[in-house]
């Protein structure tokens, strides 16, 4: 996946496409995370608002998933791509995703 020999237009198109896919991937992960944390943490339906206990649990759930997910990404990048340049490119991609999440 080396884009250095594409012209400017194609490269922009490719970057735009990748951005779109990353956004889609992020939305998917977000939805999955909500389901996961809801299933694990919210089981008390005597109240109609989320209790502070449930809230704390959800926070821990999110934090844990994000951190472990980041760890898996790093390991994955290292294993899947032996070449250091490719690793750099992909780490940037993954980091951008993490930053996107924490800025929203």
């Amino acid at each position: 996946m080396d884009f250095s020999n594409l012209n400017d237009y194609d490269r922009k198109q490719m970057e735009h496409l990748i951005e779109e896919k990353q956004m889609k991937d992020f939305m998917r992960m977000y939805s999955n995370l909500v389901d996961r944390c809801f299933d694990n943490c919210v089981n008390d339906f005597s109240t109609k608002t989320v209790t502070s206990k449930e809230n704390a649990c959800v926070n821990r759930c999110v934090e844990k998933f994000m951190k472990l997910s980041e760890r898996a990404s790093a390991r994955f990048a290292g294993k899947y791509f032996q070449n250091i340049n490719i690793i750099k490119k992909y780490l940037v991609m993954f980091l951008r995703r993490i930053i996107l999440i924490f800025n929203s």
Partner: protein
Amino acid sequence: MDNQMQMRMAEQEFELVTELLRKITNRCYQKCYDKTYESGDVTTRESLCMDKCVLKYFEVNKNINDRLQAASQAKIEQQKRVEEFQEKRRRKKYGS
């Protein structure tokens, strides 16, 4: 042609890689996370578990790939032998 094809291949590769990463992350998280949710911080145990899980997943992936390839290769060889045998028999019966 080259550019378009290249872009399509890159797109495919990106999809595959993203999908693979997503699968690995979810599966390994499911196997490794501490169900008690004591804290949001990750323990050393969980971190190491994630590391090993990712590597093992790749290994299993490779093993299965190798096995399937070997099986399909064996099948091709067997088919070849059958065809050679049938060809020999045909020659014997009817002459070349």
